[in-house]
């Protein structure tokens, strides 16, 4: 595949055992296989319960160890990494087995599975899961997911571009300064839009981009658009530190403006709330639901469009964060509410 560069000599093939999704899948797979084996033996669920005394500690300990190992994986040739994925669980099985033997009371009947055999089974599970995750990564290979991300990346609505340009034209003679700053905002927005879809930025930058986007819309919509930002327990420092994929929030705001503000004659307030929850960041965007979704979009399918935009963002989040990010959207108490949760990834 890719030629190894001097700085990073090897490709990482150790699964990302620090990822909740990977951990959940691995645990599920191991437990399912053991359950099936126990059922074939006639022991069923009880057998699984008995085995889990050994199973769960081995799985978790192996994954914690591999999570640590992954950081130095680039220094290790891939075949070594694969071997480690078998050896680590085997070592853990022997270690946990040893510990259980010393525990008085005999919680686990080790006669069912002699230590040597246990190590073999653990190693087999390790290599099988490593193989599965490696294949999975290849299936979603960088080239492929790159293309997928590019396709999913929020594209600006042509309607927005031309209306904004038109608004700037209207300002040039009367308010040249405002026209200038609007064009500057517009070009910065487009610079980000044309960047690589995998680009990572700070939350602070993303929010600045959102503000620029909203100020362009403000030129166009005037008093009809009002925006309220609330950032409860998030400090300036945290905003600078938090890493997010670029254009994480802007498409959500564009959605709110398009369906919540453009469709209404009266002034509308969009509320944006940022909040930190342990190691996650929570962003909520609220806009009032237009009284009657008029027929103005009958031919462009407003509801379908809205759904597609959100689905698009959801898929992009899944590619970027797997199961660690969530997006919920829907009407709640007369307002349309979009809630986004994503991990707080610290950068320098």
């Amino acid at each position, binding site marked *: 595949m890719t030629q190894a560069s001097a700085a990073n000599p090897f490709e990482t093939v150790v699964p990302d055992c620090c990822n909740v999704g990977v951990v959940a899948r691995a645990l599920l797979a191991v437990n399912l296989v053991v359950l099936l084996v126990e059922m074939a033996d006639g022991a069923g669920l009880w057998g699984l319960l008995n085995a889990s005394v050994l199973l769960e500690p081995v799985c978790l300990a192996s994954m914690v160890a591999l999570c640590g190992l992954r950081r130095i994986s680039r220094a290790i040739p891939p075949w070594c990494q694969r071997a480690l994925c078998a050896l680590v669980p085997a070592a853990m099985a022997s270690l946990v087995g040893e510990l259980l033997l010393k525990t008085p009371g005999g919680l686990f009947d080790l006669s069912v599975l002699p230590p040597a055999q246990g190590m073999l089974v653990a190693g087999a599970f390790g290599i099988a899961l490593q193989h599965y995750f490696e294949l999975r990564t290849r299936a979603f290979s960088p080239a492929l997911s790159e293309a997928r991300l590019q396709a999913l990346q929020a594209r600006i609505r042509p309607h927005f571009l031309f*209306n904004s340009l038109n608004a700037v034209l209207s300002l040039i003679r009367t308010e040249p300064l405002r026209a200038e700053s609007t064009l500057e905002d517009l070009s910065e927005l487009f610079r980000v839009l044309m960047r690589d879809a995998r680009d990572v930025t700070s939350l602070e930058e993303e929010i600045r981009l959102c503000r620029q986007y909203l100020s362009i819309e403000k030129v166009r919509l005037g008093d009809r658009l009002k925006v309220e930002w609330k950032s409860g327990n998030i400090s300036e420092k945290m905003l600078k530190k938090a890493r997010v994929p670029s254009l994480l929030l802007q498409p959500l705001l564009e959605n709110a403006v398009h369906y919540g503000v453009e469709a209404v004659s009266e002034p509308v307030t969009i509320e944006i709330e940022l909040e930190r929850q342990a190691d996650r960041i929570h962003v909520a965007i609220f806009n009032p639901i237009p009284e009657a979704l008029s027929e103005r979009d*009958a031919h462009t399918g407003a509801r379908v469009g809205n759904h597609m935009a959100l689905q698009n963002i959801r898929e992009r989040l899944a590619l970027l964060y797997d199961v660690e990010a969530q997006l919920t959207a829907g009407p709640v108490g007369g307002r349309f509410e979009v809630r986004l949760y994503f991990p707080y990834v610290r950068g320098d």
Partner: protein
Amino acid sequence: MVPRIFIVDDEAPARARLATLLSDIAAEFPHELAGVAENGTTALAAIPAARPDIVLLDIQMPGMSGIELAGHLSGMEHPPAVIFVTAFDGFALKAFEVHAIDYLLKPVRATRLADALRRAVALAGPKSQAQAEAIAAAAADLGVRRQHFAVQERGRLTLVPLAEVVYLKAELKYVTLRTRTRDYVIEESLLSLEQELGERFVRVHRNTLVARSAIVGVERGVPDASDPDKGQESWQVVLAGIYERLQISRRQWPVIKALLNRGT
């Protein structure tokens, strides 16, 4: 007399831009600005008095779309020529091209605006009927259904939301539109109304369309004098909010019965 021009757009900068462009081309295309409006409802209130010859009309507006507004305008006694102005609207533009309806793309160039205005002047008057038909056809292609009836009364246009209409009844030359509070007279054929509004209205009689949502039930009524089979049992529609009953023709009775059975 110079042509009078009216601007309808929901975005203030877009209205300002069109007004600027109009003043720029005033030398080559003498005209008068008859007025501006920020949505369909205010436009319909102002246009009969402003009496414009040409309306520059944005398509995407809150409330009533430009296409619906154009439909109402073409029902006026002296309908103005309509030029649609839009930033980007792929589907609509395709329909406009098919039906040879004029449009301008935002940002608009002064020369294009002048050309379109000249064409509109040529189209006004006797050709307004052709424009009305083209707009109706484009609206049908785009699936734009009206949300209002624009009723002309003593030179003024009154908007009646579709949701308030209880029934439409064909009289000798016109159609009576009944809401809970009063009735209006409109000049449209019941047949074309049925084709357009078939999803919301159901025919209960040769001359009556009733809003599906307004039907509460049916009851036995007095025999219909116009019915050829006098003395046969007849049924009437019971309506929400109105004491009046409407005769169901024998021919439509199975349809209504099926409708009521489905509802319960």
